[in-house]
């Protein structure tokens, strides 16, 4: 039946993996955006690690690996992590980074010890924690009685995405104001603490839902990298969310096809693809990329040099020689020639024997930009 369905020439298994990957990418990017703009990205890392003890403790209590208990256990431990970090931080004995650095390894160790000692033979090994098993999501169907409702992971990650969407749409304004101006939020009667914990619960639930597919460490990549990439591309929060989701989904697709081509870890490739997107934005973003910033700086420097020369020529009597300009600013004569040539091309100065002088156009240009901060005083 469905197993034979073809879409864009993809097999059923591929469609399921791509769907799960996209759902994970989108839901992680949605909540991850707030982690990035709130500068609490590493709390996401901490939470994704405390998923393990949450699952183990829940397993030891209930004796099952059912999805509901896993999500509940992870949410409890995620909030516990955030609470402990906040508590340590508030005592003033440790800074926040150190608090994070001591809390989650301790909880993770506890989880590993519990796994090793008490859950022998249960399918809960460390490699699953690290890599995830998105390769096999199509094989695990959700059975109600004897009827199959399709792959379980699609239902779980879909439900999580829906929950995240509802949360972000309902509390968009509140999340925005608490992220950028907690004091204003408090004065408006919006509790930053309450929203902080709401967000952290969401991060925990998203982490555990994604963890089955992409693993604990790579879920960090999906939380942080697409939003950070989007953060380099826009200054508006709603655009940032949209871009982050698009980049998250794109990372899942690119990663999947890369891993198909080279027969390697799907989750790892997704993280690597997200990294490539980040590098592209880091280098080439028009406003915030290295290249963009370099270009803007170059344009500003050129404009400044031109104005400097114009004003200097204006203050001189008669023609100003290029040599005197070079000597005045201690520039190489080649540089002066290049700047003057640009001014000549723009028709602002004219060259003649003995140097340059302003054209009529150049004079009006200076008069019009009367607010120029540069006044030549000798």
């Amino acid at each position: 039946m469905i197993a034979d369905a073809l879409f864009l020439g993809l097999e059923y298994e591929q469609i399921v993996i791509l769907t799960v990957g996209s759902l994970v990418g989108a839901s992680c990017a949605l909540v991850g955006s707030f982690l990035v703009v709130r500068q609490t990205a590493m709390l996401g890392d901490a939470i994704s690690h405390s998923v393990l003890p949450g699952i183990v403790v829940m397993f030891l209590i209930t004796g099952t690996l059912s999805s509901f208990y896993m999500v509940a256990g992870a949410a409890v431990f995620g909030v516990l992590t955030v609470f402990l970090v906040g508590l340590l931080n508030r005592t003033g004995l440790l800074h926040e980074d150190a608090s994070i650095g001591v809390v989650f390894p301790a909880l993770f160790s506890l989880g590993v010890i519990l796994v090793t000692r008490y859950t022998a033979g249960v399918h809960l090994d460390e490699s699953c924690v690290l890599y995830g098993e998105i390769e096999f999501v199509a094989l695990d169907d959700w059975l109600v009685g004897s009827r199959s409702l399709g792959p379980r992971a699609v239902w779980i990650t879909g439900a999580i995405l829906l929950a995240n969407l509802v949360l972000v749409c309902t509390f968009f304004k509140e999340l925005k104001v608490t992220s950028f101006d907690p004091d204003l939020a408090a004065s408006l009667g919006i509790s930053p603490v309450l929203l902080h914990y709401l967000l952290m619960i969401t991060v925990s639930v998203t982490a555990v839902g994604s963890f089955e597919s992409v693993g604990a460490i790579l879920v960090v990549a999906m939380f942080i990298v697409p939003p950070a990439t989007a953060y380099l591309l826009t200054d508006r929060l709603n655009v940032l969310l949209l871009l982050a989701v698009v980049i998250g989904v794109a990372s899942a697709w690119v990663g999947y096809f890369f891993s198909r081509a080279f027969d390697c870890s799907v989750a790892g490739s997704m993280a690597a693809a997200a990294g490539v997107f980040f590098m592209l934005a880091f280098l080439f973003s028009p406003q915030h990329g290295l290249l963009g910033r370099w270009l803007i700086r170059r344009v500003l420097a050129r404009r400044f040099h031109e104005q400097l020369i114009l004003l200097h020529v204006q203050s001189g009597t008669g023609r100003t020689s290029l040599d005197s300009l070079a000597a005045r600013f201690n520039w190489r004569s080649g540089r002066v020639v290049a700047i003057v040539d640009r001014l000549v091309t723009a028709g602002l100065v004219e060259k003649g024997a003995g140097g340059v002088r302003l054209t009529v156009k150049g004079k009006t240009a200076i008069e019009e930009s009367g607010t120029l901060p540069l006044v030549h005083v000798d």
Partner: protein
Amino acid sequence: MEFTSIFIKVLLGASLLGVVAGVMGCFALLRRQSLLGDAVSHAALPGVCIAFLITGGRDPLSILIGALLAGFAGSLFILLVVRGSRIKEDSAIGIVLSVFFGVGIVLLTYIKRLPVGNRSGLDTFLFGQAATLMWKDVLLFTVVALLVLTVIIVFYKEFKLLCFDRSFGDSLGLPMRRLEIVLTSLLVVVVVIGLQTVGVILMLAALVTPAAAARQWTDRFRVMLVLAGSFGAISSGLGVLASSSIERMPTGPAIVMVSSSVLIVSLLLAPGRGLVWNFVQSRRLQKRIRHENLLTDLYRLGERQKNWERTVSAPTLMGMRGQSGRQIWRTVGQLESRGLLTVDGDAMQLTTTGLDEASDVVRKHRLWELYLMRRLDLPADHVHRDAEAMEHALTDEAVAEFEELLGYPQHDPHGREIPKRRRLS
């Protein structure tokens, strides 16, 4: 449990690592870069894999070098992203950590399908397996430990400046950026050699937890370094002991559990900073203030009636500070057992020592009032509240100095007599 050569070897290796990781952790902690170690340990993975692919996995040293280079590249990349864009440090660390690790996993799964022989070295980098340490490794740890400690001792002053007052270092003309790179390189070296013992995820705890514990016990950097090294060594030692004597107890997590316990004890009990310590101190202070307040109340009542021998009833005292009868009686009981007052039914009376003690506190109170008025020109009706707090805090030496400064005054601003010093300290 027997002290086999394997056990001693592992114990030695882990303890050496504990010392250097603890020491390096102090720098990370004070420079608020605790999580950098996490990024470096994750970033090392692709280096390990690439080195494995190049050499075919035959040479452990080349794998270490690969890890070093990748870890160093990761830390440089964080620096580049933070300096070169609007991305903040926390996101930059998260990006490097997860992307480098993702690339590492890709390479790892690729290697796992290759038909090459010895791949066992790779998994130990992920989770750490102290049991696989060899004498060769212990020797390497010793060399690295000596190297790291030597560099730290030689550049102790410079590194200290880097942690506490970087701009002062710049103003002295010290090459702070180069020192920063040296320090980061040392961190990378320590992280990479630690991976094999405690693994990628728990390396962070080996660095930060002992340093965080050491920080609680001292305000001196030198002492903190020594303590962090010791805590690191002790935690590693006990962790190895636990994992070798308890069945199915992984070494890395056992080490982290021990060091976390050390941290919890430090956070609670460390003198001067610990939570319990502070609680006890503030309780003690509150008790002293309660005692001194009741004594001065009795003094003032006696002063009003020009007779300290008369007994005072508890309800009279209740009116003075709005305390309940129970509160008063509790304090009275404590003062009685200290021999500062005698109780007879509902009435009480200061003893001679009690009167001495009370007049001493009142003396401090009134001298401070006078000092505030004469020296700071505060009006007479503004000084009482301040003196009410200072009377509990002033030392005898300070009071002696004021008295001289004020010319041995007889009366306070309100015209009441300043009691003479009676108690001999």
